[in-house]
């Protein structure tokens, strides 16, 4: 599976090119002079001339694109208008928090969705199942900021069980501060996963290999963990990969609700600060993260499912 990794990475090049095009075009949507927009309040005639020369805004569009790609390949995303340091530095400073948050959220989603999908599937069409499906149906229609705000308002502000924002100091405090945001994201994701997982588990429970496992006389929990769970996990991964875009989109919102200093919060700050290079950079990073997660889930799937290894 690792042997195929370089091939898989090569396959992602067209995706990265497409992402580059979108991010490039994005800034061209700005009304008026892009150089002026990029410089924002710092736009002096000299600075405009410098930027125009540096970024080539006076050259043909395709040349501009090549220059843009060239800078990207050198890890150059431009200079942040508000902080006056390279965008890559701004992002690098705030990316780790987002990564930890997303990983925690994925774990929460798994802890929530998988057991509940099992419970629902094992009680198919009985009261428990109908109730769970009802709850998740409502969960699917609940905007993520609302879930977050309710958590923050009741568990944080009212009951003081959790801090109401920021990330605190130190590792333990950090996890404590990220607990509610991650739980919010996890609930949102589990609502999406739950529906398909339930039908997946129902399908696996009916599979003949589960019947065969029971005919071997092995304990029910071993049938559930060794066969049903194991086989459902593959679909779970696929579903997770498909929905990672939604998860990252939600991260932008949740970081705002909980004032988490990650790149999602950065994106919204940059929007209101008209810091377009940062908007561009964060958008790029989020899109690249989605493709990388696609790749990771692919690799994990082939690790869990020997049939994919030919």
């Amino acid at each position: 599976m690792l042997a195929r990794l370089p091939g898989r990475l090569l396959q992602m090049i067209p995706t990265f090119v497409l992402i580059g095009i979108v991010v490039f075009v994005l800034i061209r949507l700005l009304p008026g002079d892009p150089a002026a927009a990029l410089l924002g309040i710092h736009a002096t005639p000299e600075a405009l001339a410098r930027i125009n020369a540096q970024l080539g805004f006076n050259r043909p569009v395709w040349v501009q694109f090549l220059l843009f790609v060239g800078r990207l390949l050198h890890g150059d995303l431009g200079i942040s208008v508000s902080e006056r340091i390279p965008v890559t530095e701004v992002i690098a400073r705030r990316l780790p928090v987002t990564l930890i948050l997303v990983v925690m959220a994925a774990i929460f989603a798994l802890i929530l969705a998988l057991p509940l999908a099992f419970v629902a599937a094992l009680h198919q069409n009985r009261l428990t199942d109908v109730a769970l499906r009802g709850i998740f149906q409502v969960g699917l229609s609940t905007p993520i900021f609302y879930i977050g705000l309710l958590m923050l308002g009741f568990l944080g502000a009212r009951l003081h069980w959790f801090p109401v924002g920021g990330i605190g100091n130190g590792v333990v405090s950090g996890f404590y501060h990220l607990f509610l945001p991650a739980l919010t994201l996890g609930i949102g994701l589990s609502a999406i996963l739950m529906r398909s997982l339930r039908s997946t588990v129902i399908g696996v429970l009916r599979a003949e290999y589960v019947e065969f496992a029971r005919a071997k006389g092995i304990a029910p929990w071993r049938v559930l963990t060794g066969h049903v769970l194991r086989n459902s996990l593959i679909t779970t991964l696929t579903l997770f990969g498909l929905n990672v875009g939604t998860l990252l989109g939600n991260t932008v919102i949740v970081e705002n609700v909980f004032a988490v200093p990650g790149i999602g919060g950065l994106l919204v700050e940059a929007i209101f600060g008209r810091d377009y290079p940062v908007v561009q950079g964060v958008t790029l990073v989020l899109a690249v993260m989605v493709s990388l997660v696609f790749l990771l889930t692919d690799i994990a799937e082939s690790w869990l499912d020997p049939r994919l290894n030919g």
Partner: protein
Amino acid sequence: MSGALPTLAEAPTEASLRRKRLRISVPLTLGIIITVFFLVCAIVPGWIAPYDPLSFDYSNLQVGPSWIHLLGTDNFGRDELSRIIWAAQVDIQIALFCTIPPLIVGTIIGSLVGYYGGIADMIFGRVVDLVVTFPFMVLVIAIVAVLGPGLVNVYIAVSAVGWVFYARLVRSEIMVLRQADFAAAGRVMGYSDLRIIFRHLLPNALIAVVVYWMTDMALDILLGSSLGYLGLGAQPPTAEWGVLVSDGKNFMDTSWWMSVFPGIAIVLCGTGLSLLGDGVADLLAVKR
């Protein structure tokens, strides 16, 4: 004679089969009721809202739910219930304006691409790859960021991305329908391609589009209110559910009703629309 009678009684008539097939389920009924309720709120808010949603009342600031103000008042003494009812207008508008342009554009492009295939289809495939790679919300936020906050720019941003999903759906339907006998019959009759596509093929694909449209409206209400909450969508003083939630967020510990009730409106409206979509899909046996 005697043998014919039981047969008559047992054989399901066309009408009874249809009744059986079109049995309206409980979730669908719920979906219809909720959706109609919010539509009424959106169309004639003035008939339902007990108060003027904009009139300040400094003697009743942040009063909790009571018989006078069912859902309490906000920090300017405005009646929360009336604000929520008037906000339905904006959110239903979001649901429609975020979905109808993509529906029309996507359906037309999807039909053409599905019917003709070739290079257009290949280019379309790339576009789909792209949109799938980008987190939808991030792309919309990025476009709004560049165009500037505001509802009109939200409509533009969502439409710029959303048409792809409709086009993808219609394309796959048309590609199947293209093979059908009546399409060949149309060609034999010498009908023009456009007439075959839009008069003969597309009507058969429309059920799937309508079902997707209902779910999409539910998603766009969530998206629109999220952007409103972030300050990128509807701008105050426009009452929009997401904006209302945001207005109350700083008063969660003292005046919880200010955020909680508008949020419930979003959840209810979203649930109603998706129940409606799911129910119609089940009813017409559309696979999703």
